């Protein structure tokens, strides 16, 4: 986006002051998307739809009825269903699918006035961690287009990193918001499971899926997350209350403001009293030196801000990989059964009977990674294997959640560590070893299994010539999104990693 801005708040001020119009911002974003088409961050763009929203935003601005995000350009991961734009989940299966309704996340942001620039590339059905599993080609990392942007919300992170839009939506099942945010040098947060409605979010692993925003920094994450959150009667796993507080917009902002006020009152050591738990298991032999060094420097920065570092143990961290790769595929195998070529979506051109039609449609419509996970999921749910795999994984899941609770109970207020073991890999790496990428999810899966909120913020660079971003993960206890964002914000007040921008042609 050619229009320069510091924050969504600054954009809002400029819009309200009529220094820039929503239509100008939308056009600028559309042009930027066009200019950076080689990043393949966007799957569907429809200028008419976008400009209609922008004109409506301008009308509201003109009449002085602007809402929190009126005129702010955003874009949605293509797993949120939208009435206007196609929704494909980056799958051939849904290549021509348009939803008759909007996802709750989409309608909440639209109601707040945000203008959608289009739909973002991702891994097919959100399965993957490099955005390489998109049926429409990989998205690319703006810091180095030969590298992956991370995934599954790769387009969401790339679009923000490239400055096309100030914020995007993503979904996180096992790290799919945090990991691409880390690899693209932007900020992202996955909130507590149940705080953001899953209605209209194409399901992958229903007990893990949670929507979250990607933006430059914590303050902008707050703008989106607070608007997206809230109870939704159309999602039975949506929470009415969070620790006794109504799950509604304002909840996270109010906690954020309270935390900021507390930090401000501390003077030169704003984070005095904040105990940061650092899990020893997050600094194991698999962690690359560059990422380890950047994270260590970030932790020292936090100490300089007054926080204390506490060594903690999350002893079942390693078990999070097998537990996750049983539970998520199990749920996915069932969730993706509906794509059978009967009612909508891809149908094979030639078949002998109904069963053949379904088999062929699925074999041809799904990509390899999706098929792999459906196979795994189907296997672990089979009679005779269910107890050994699925039930056992659920037990491990509870133990992992308990480990976090033990840490939060007496040892620390937040937990910090790396998001990924390494910086972004090159596109095509691990192609012959599809499960190698699964192991790289080790630092994000536990949080997902426990349903906790966690953010990823940029904290340095690594790789060749220190050219690829590194992310710091900040994990909070249930419903402490406001605290997590305030802690992230304090770091960003003291550092400029989040202001670094890739050089793009």
């Amino acid at each position, binding site marked *: 986006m050619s229009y320069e801005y510091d924050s969504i708040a600054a954009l809002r001020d400029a819009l309200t002051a009529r220094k820039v119009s929503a239509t100008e911002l939308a056009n600028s974003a559309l042009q930027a998307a066009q200019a950076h088409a080689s990043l393949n961050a966007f799957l569907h763009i429809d200028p008419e739809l976008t400009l209609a929203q922008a004109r409506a935003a301008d009308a509201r601005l003109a009449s002085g009825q602007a809402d929190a995000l009126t005129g702010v350009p955003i874009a949605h991961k293509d797993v949120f269903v939208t009435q206007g734009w196609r929704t494909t989940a980056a799958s051939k299966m*849904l290549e021509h699918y348009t939803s008759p309704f909007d996802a709750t996340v989409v309608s909440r942001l639209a109601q707040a006035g945000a203008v959608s620039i289009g739909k973002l590339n991702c891994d097919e059905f959100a399965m993957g961690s490099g955005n390489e599993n998109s049926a429409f080609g990989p998205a690319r990392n703006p810091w180095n287009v030969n590298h992956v942007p991370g995934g599954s919300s790769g387009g969401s992170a790339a679009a923000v990193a490239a400055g096309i839009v100030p914020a995007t939506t993503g979904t996180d099942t096992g790290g799919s918001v945090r990991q691409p945010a880390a690899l693209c040098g932007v900020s992202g947060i996955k909130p507590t499971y149940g705080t953001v409605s899953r209605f209209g979010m194409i399901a992958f692993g229903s*007990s893990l899926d949670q929507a979250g925003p990607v933006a430059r920094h914590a303050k902008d994450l707050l703008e989106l997350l607070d608007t997206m959150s809230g109870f939704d009667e159309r999602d039975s796993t949506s929470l009415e209350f969070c620790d006794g507080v109504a799950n509604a917009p304002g909840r996270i902002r109010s906690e954020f403001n309270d935390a900021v006020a507390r930090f401000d009152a501390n003077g030169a050591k704003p984070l005095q009293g904040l105990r940061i738990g650092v899990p020893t298991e997050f600094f194991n032999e698999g962690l690359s030196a560059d990422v380890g060094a950047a994270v260590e420097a970030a932790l020292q920065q936090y100490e300089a801000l007054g926080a204390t570092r506490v060594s903690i143990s999350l002893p079942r961290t390693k078990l999070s990989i097998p537990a996750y790769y049983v539970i998520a595929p199990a749920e996915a195998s069932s969730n993706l059964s509906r794509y059978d070529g009967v009612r909508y979506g891809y149908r094979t051109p030639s078949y002998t009977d109904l069963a053949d039609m*379904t088999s062929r449609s699925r074999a041809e419509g799904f990509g390899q990674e999706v098929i792999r996970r459906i196979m795994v999921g189907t296997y672990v749910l089979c009679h005779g294997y*269910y107890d050994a795999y699925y039930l056992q994984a659920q037990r491990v899941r509870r133990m992992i959640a308990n480990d976090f609770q033990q840490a939060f109970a007496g040892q620390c207020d937040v937990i910090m560590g790396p998001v990924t073991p390494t910086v972004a890999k090159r596109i095509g790496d691990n192609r012959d070893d599809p499960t190698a990428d699964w192991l790289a999810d080790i630092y994000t899966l536990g949080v997902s299994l426990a349903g906790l909120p966690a953010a990823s913020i940029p904290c340095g660079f690594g790789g060749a010539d220190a050219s690829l971003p590194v992310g710091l993960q900040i994990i909070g206890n249930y419903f402490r999104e406001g605290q997590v964002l305030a802690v992230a914000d304090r770091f960003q007040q003291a550092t400029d990693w989040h202001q670094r921008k890739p050089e793009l042609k």
Partner: protein
Amino acid sequence: MEWEIVIGLETHAQLSTASKIFSGSSTTYGALPNTQANEIDMALPGSLPVMNRGAVERAIAFGLAVGAHVAPRSIFARKNYFYPDLPKNYQISQFEIPVVQGGEIRFFVGDTEKTVRLTRAHLEEDAGKSLHENFTGPHGESSTGIDLNRAGTPLLEIVSEPEIRSAAEAVAYARTLHSLVVWLGICDGNMQEGSFRCDANVSVRPKGQAEFGTRCEIKNLNSFRFLERAIIHEAQRQIELIEDGGKVRQETRLYDADKDETRSMRSKEDSDDYRYFPDPDLPPLVIAPEWVERVKAGMPELPGAKRKRFESDLGLTGYDAAQLTMSRAVADYFEATARHLPEGQAKLAANWILGEVSAALNRDEKDIDAIPVSAEALAGLIKRIIDGTISNKIARDVFAAMWAGENGGDADAIIDAKGLKQISDTGAIGKMVDDVLAAHPAIVEEYRAGKQKAFNSLVGQIMKAAKGKANPQQVNDLLKEKLG
């Protein structure tokens, strides 16, 4: 060898909610295909199920009515299998922890009371319908159509223990269960529309053997007659098979009503692995005690309680009380009739309703809700029997006239108009007796000679003279007196 038949029934009762179990679509029967299917019923991407509380309340009412444990926490599970009319390709059901656990159904087989325990009752959604016949695609080719109007309709699957021992018992059990769910208002009971249908698990074993034989499941029996025929045939088939040295194979069978036989649908070996697991889209169904209490407060008096009350308070026999409580409408009609009668005369109302009234309803194929004789009118008729205005025999004629709507269906008006009032005046009857005695000296002679039959003959002559209206007791008494 003597064989024993062992039967367990799985009954699907469609719950009478206005909307579907997990979506807001209407459940009304007979709408144009796919006009009652929304994004949830069609399993569009991003749609999610939301539990219909009305369906849960109906399950709670059923649990309370059969004396079951209403689980404070039960789990919805996904039953995974591919079928074109199952839009998600999994059915949301309950597997390991159902909402209703245990309970029992008591019923009469003839005069014998029997109790069958229930294993469980669980909530689940129905599938849509595949339309294979006379369905053509857009280019006129033969094709299969899918109608999703029924998809997501709430069902309560009620599973009995294998404690039923004959086709007659199975029918009596199913009838009682049917009348109970209709009584509770949780199911409309319409079997033609599929609102109440049974699967029968049938096995046979030599009488006295403790272990069960291998069972076969007969699917989708949607009438009591089919249920009875299917069980009789299936048991016979199994007995003949074993007696010929064969073995029963565990399988699912279909009853063909046209051919009146069962035939194999699929064997256990080819049956799907349903890969049940808890549905992550639906939290555990939590039923607080207060919710159970609220449902209880809104429930009608149960047939069992009513039956006991009819026996103890109104003096009915167990059998009559059971018959009258087979349907809430009949029980209500009986109680309304009895209410208009002097105390202690309820038995007479029961006799009339189970006799003349039932017969007339059956003859005209009428439902009690459409009965032309109101409870008050029937009581008006019975009162005239009690006070001796008419005899029981004449009352039947009056009832027929009431049924036909003569004289506004009012018993007194009909008795007056037809001059059916019983003659109870001693003088008038005495005169008739005198006349008959004078006219038939030969019969009087026979009586005096000791022939008892002659007395009845004289009574007949007197009643004939009275056109049946003379009070029979008085005729008897006076005749005896006058014959000395």
